[in-house]
């Protein structure tokens, strides 16, 4: 017996046990969640600003640039992809899953920072604009509407139009207030809460796939207050748990309203009348940060307005973007 054989025979079982104890749990990650751009090269992707984003664009690049920003943080653009039809109406439309979200590359918390997120969006806009000065308009839902405001606060002169559907907050204090209202009166005896809490005793979030999968089990907990139609849920590809958990914590005591007074473009706030959290008063408070903003309530829907009221939403967005790029008065 050689020395190597001896060591293998003696320590082999122990090594095997240690390998079984590795964080991967030895399971098929893609059994639970779809592959990201790092695992599936067939997905449309954009390598930029030190990451790799799931991204695609539609329409003539010479036309006015409109970037769609999904919810979350950590969500994806699957539920707003139907708005790509605007490409046929004279807009260059861009969709991408944010850093660590959707089908984009996964990052640990230390790479999901305020700087990296703002830098990503600046890089994406410049990439699709093919310049650093071409105007851009944003259509953002929930977190995406916050992200759009964040960019606008840094580049008020560059943004031509904004459609902000149910933004949650533009400052830390507003966000704290929003979460207070969101989680107030949560039904901890309800099935949704039980499902989410139980799942966390059965699968732990020690790798990205498991953590992302667990996010899905918690989503229905707040759907009722947000007026989301459980019979017609918004489709998602994959949630990014690290982005959801880490980004807003990393943003610290943020205030994305300091330069909004310099923004001269249009801002349309959209809300659904079934939403008990993003109320009209909530929107009025946020809209007051903009020099000129208007609020439209879409009847019969909640936070899922872009998906579950597609015709009304598309019409509002189309009208707003046409006015923004034609130089219409705010």
């Amino acid at each position: 017996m050689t020395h190597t054989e001896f060591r293998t025979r003696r320590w082999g079982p122990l090594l095997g046990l240690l390998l079984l104890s590795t964080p991967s749990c030895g399971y098929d990650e893609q059994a639970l969640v779809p592959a990201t751009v790092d695992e599936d090269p067939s997905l449309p992707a954009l390598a930029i600003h030190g990451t790799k984003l799931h991204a695609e664009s539609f329409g003539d690049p010479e036309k006015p640039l409109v970037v769609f920003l999904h919810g979350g943080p950590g969500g994806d653009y699957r539920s707003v992809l139907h708005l790509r039809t605007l490409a046929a109406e004279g807009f260059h439309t861009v969709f991408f899953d944010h850093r660590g979200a959707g089908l984009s590359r996964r990052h640990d918390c230390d790479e999901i920072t305020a700087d990296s997120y703002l830098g990503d969006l600046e890089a994406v806009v410049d990439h699709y604009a093919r310049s650093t000065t071409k105007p851009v308009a944003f259509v953002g839902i929930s977190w995406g509407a916050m992200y759009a405001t964040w960019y606008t606060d840094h580049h008020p002169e560059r943004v031509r139009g904004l459609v902000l559907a149910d933004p949650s907050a533009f400052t830390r204090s507003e966000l704290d207030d929003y979460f207070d209202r969101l989680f107030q009166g949560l039904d901890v005896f309800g099935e949704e809460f039980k499902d989410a809490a139980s799942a966390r005793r059965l699968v732990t979030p020690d790798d990205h796939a498991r953590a992302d999968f667990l996010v899905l089990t918690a989503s229905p907990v707040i759907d009722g207050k947000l007026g989301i139609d459980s019979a017609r849920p918004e489709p998602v590809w994959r949630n990014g748990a690290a982005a959801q958990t880490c980004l807003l914590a990393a943003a610290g005591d943020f205030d994305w309203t300091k330069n909004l007074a310099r923004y001269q473009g249009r801002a349309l706030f959209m809300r659904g009348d079934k939403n008990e959290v993003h109320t009209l008063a909530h929107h009025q408070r946020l809209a007051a940060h903009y020099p000129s903003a208007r609020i439209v309530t879409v009847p019969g829907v909640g936070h899922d307005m872009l998906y579950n009221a597609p015709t009304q939403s598309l019409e509002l967005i189309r009208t707003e973007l046409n006015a923004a790029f034609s130089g219409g008065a705010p």
Partner: protein
Amino acid sequence: MSRSIMAATAVALSTLVVSPLAGAQALNPARFDDANHIVSGGFGVDGPITADVSYAPIVPFPLLDRRLALPIRFFLPMRPYHGDYGLSTGAQLATIGRHGFGLSGRLDLSLRRESTEVASFTRIGGGLTFLGGYFRERGSVALELGWEPGLATRVSPSDSYKRQTYPGAHSTWMGFGNGFLRAGVQGVVRVAGNTELTLRTGVTRTEQLNRMDLLPFYAMVGINQGF
């Protein structure tokens, strides 16, 4: 060796070999010498809001010249759906000094089943818990450190998840590396005769010390009846 001792040894050894758990009721090891049976009931937060009942015979364990508790526990979410349940069995031993200070160790093996909108889960888990504290017949208070590894967990995505979210989803087994840790306190106070009130509370973290969202803590109150 008598058959009861052999059976107790077999249970203790099998839990030692298999090692995984599920939140257990609080037993006061100082009672192991004067009670032959302890039945318990409790409720609180441990993952979901949970209710449990358990029964623990106390048997001699001559190998270590101790008495051994062999708890069997049945636990449910307060509002179970779709046949959710949990079962665990284990063994608890203690060494208590003359002044009441002591150490106790506990091993558990558990089976837990849960169905949700996204997936159904079946988990064979284990538990290794150490208690260090002050144990008297009239009451005890102890620090608790626990490790609850998943031995094998079957995750089966639901049809609605496949239909609405990810058509490529399919069932998978997870092995080790899917467990969590507990750190907390547990106290037992004898209130009348052989009746005790119990409290366990503390925080949970994953095996890699990551935070567990939603309810990253546990707090269970209960009642023990010895006889």
